[in-house]
């Protein structure tokens, strides 16, 4: 029987030397060693046995090297109907030569921007995997939208993953949107191997005054892939951030999404759907920190779980004492299609201010048999009737995608999965 000590899986790996950001890395390493790998005993990971899964699946605790991707592969990997800037990554490394630039956007390898304050938004001491990434990422990307720049077309972050020997892929992304800037990001993965690998991603986003940032994400990892992501955003006055996260596959996926509302009249929106089958395990941990008065957050996550899949939703809303007149709404709804599927859902509200509007709710149930019969009684085939109902349930989330062509792409993707495409 194996016993996991705090950090033994990564012990050798952390002794290797990494270039650049020395001081930050040291801090990351110290923080990781202090926190250790989370076990089921740790409150934040009690439904997601990630350490055990890593031990079983990952055979080589090393960062996977970048590999060659050609323009044809890039072309094939772009979602249908997409029109905009494309940045290509191989195992987390930016490949500048393959970029298709449509609009004004400053981007470079993170190593070329050594002054970037990485770790200042997604802090290492908040999550062991954020600490691990901070100590040992190989390369990352620095993206900057200049002040007042309105980027009309979306920016696609297209990641090719291939870790043949069960390795680590540790992308690190830094996004800065200047004051009054507007931008839409779409992240998409292409898996080039069926081997197990571990993606440990950190994305830090800094939203300037009155900036508008939209971050859409399709998670379609390989069926043997393990993924942990820490995405954290700081929002200044009058800014708005909207995340739409669509989880479709992977062996075990853990998303930590955190919004820090730091300026009044800022707005944070988090929407997600997880459509799971097989033995896929997806854990969404969200966190909104209302630090100032007059800010708003909206959250809606919906899950449909089949087979032996498992979903976890933990939504934390923290309203500090100063954050009067906060509006914070949260909703999580789930449909279980099989007796073996499991959902653990937990709203977590901590409210220290006394003049706020906060609500939360969660439901877990089966497909509405009465509605199904109603549709069948009108001549609609049972399988299609199910598809219609499931899409009606999940589709609501997709309405929050502003970019029309990407929204249609996602609708197709979801309808295909739910059998409602006919």
């Amino acid at each position, binding site marked *: 029987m194996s016993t996991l000590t705090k950090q033994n899986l990564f012990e050798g790996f952390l002794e290797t030397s990494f270039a650049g950001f020395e001081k930050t890395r040291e801090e990351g390493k110290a923080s990781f060693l202090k926190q250790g790998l989370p076990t089921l005993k740790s409150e934040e990971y009690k439904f997601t046995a990630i350490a055990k899964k890593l031990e079983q699946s990952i055979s080589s605790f090393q960062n996977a090297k970048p590999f060659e991707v050609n323009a044809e592969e890039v072309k094939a990997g772009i979602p249908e109907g997409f029109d905009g800037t494309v940045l290509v990554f191989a195992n987390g490394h930016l490949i500048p030569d393959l970029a298709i630039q449509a609009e004004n956007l400053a981007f470079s390898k993170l190593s070329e921007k050594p002054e970037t304050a990485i770790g200042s938004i997604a802090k290492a001491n908040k999550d062991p995997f954020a600490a691990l990434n901070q100590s040992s990422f190989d390369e990352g990307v620095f993206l900057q939208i200049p002040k007042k720049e309105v980027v009309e077309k979306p920016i696609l972050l297209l990641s090719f993953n291939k870790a043949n020997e069960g390795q680590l892929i540790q992308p690190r992304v830094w996004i800065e949107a200047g004051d009054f800037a507007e931008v839409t990001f779409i992240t998409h993965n292409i898996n080039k191997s069926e081997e197990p690998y571990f993606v440990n991603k950190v994305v830090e986003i800094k939203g300037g005054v009155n900036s508008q940032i939209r971050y859409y994400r399709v998670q379609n990892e390989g069926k043997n892939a393990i993924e942990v992501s820490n995405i954290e955003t700081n929002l200044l006055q009058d800014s708005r951030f909207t995340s739409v996260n669509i989880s479709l596959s992977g062996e075990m996926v853990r998303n930590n999404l955190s919004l820090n509302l730091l300026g009044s009249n800022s707005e944070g929106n988090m929407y997600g759907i997880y459509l799971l089958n097989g033995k896929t395990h997806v854990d969404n941990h969200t966190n909104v920190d209302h630090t100032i008065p007059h800010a708003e957050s909206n959250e809606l996550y919906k899950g449909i779980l089949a087979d032996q899949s498992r979903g976890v939703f933990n939504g934390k809303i923290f309203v500090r004492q100063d954050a009067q007149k906060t509006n914070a709404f949260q909703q999580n709804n789930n449909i279980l299609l099989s007796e073996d599927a499991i959902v653990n859902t937990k709203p977590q509200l901590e409210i220290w201010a006394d003049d706020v509007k906060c609500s939360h709710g969660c439901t877990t149930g089966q497909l509405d048999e009465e509605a199904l019969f*109603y549709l069948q009684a009108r001549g609609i085939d049972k399988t299609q009737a199910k598809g219609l109902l499931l899409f*009606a349930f999940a589709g609501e989330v997709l309405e929050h995608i502003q970019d029309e062509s990407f929204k249609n792409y996602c609708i197709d993707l979801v309808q295909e999965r739910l059998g409602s495409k006919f």
Partner: protein
Amino acid sequence: MLSIKNLHASIEGTPILRGINLEVKAGEVHAIMGPNGSGKSTLASVLAGREEYEVTEGEVTFKGKDLLDLAPEDRAREGVFLAFQYPVEIPGVSSTNFLRTAVNQVREYRGLEALDAVKFLTMMKEKMKLVEIDQKLLSRSLNEGFSGGEKKRNEIFQMAMLEPTLSILDETDSGLDIDALRIVSNGVNQLKSKDNATIVVTHYQRLLDYIVPDFVHVLYKGRIVKSGTKELALELEEKGYDWIKEAIDSEATV
């Protein structure tokens, strides 16, 4: 068209229907009346194919086919239509998309070509007039936030769109005010023809002033205990169900 012989059905082991016999021919309107709990809605549900009910005995043939052997969707495609007592609200499914899917699946089954968007809309507009239903209502999610009367009108509208040969109206009149009742009845009457038949399930005689039945059957304790013409409905209106109950119950104790 429809032939029910010795139909027994139960839910979770409790028998509800205990030997129903009924013959319905094209062009006829049958009313099924009876006190609460007599099995009226169960009969309607069993005919439409609701899964909770288990048919334990008897047979139902519809246009020569074994109806009980068909899935609910195939019954609908064959031409059976159930207007629900409680139409279901389905958030996120637009009324129009739903109907177009339904109409085209039914048409496909009947060997007709699918309607394109334009033809479908034309048909919809024409049928909407029948039940005076507003286009705005149909751009919303199916039945969501509809008033009771709007839901019932929507049922008859769907009936008009699907062109069934046998319509079963399950308590379509319950809860309707007189205006809504007139509109709904008027819609049903316009859809009547010599080729289709209607079964009206109701607790009240009132509806039968508007949809005039050829036959009236009284259901009690899962059996048809009395059949007659529309005069029977008037008699029931006047005397209530007690005299029938008493007659049947005293027979049973003898």
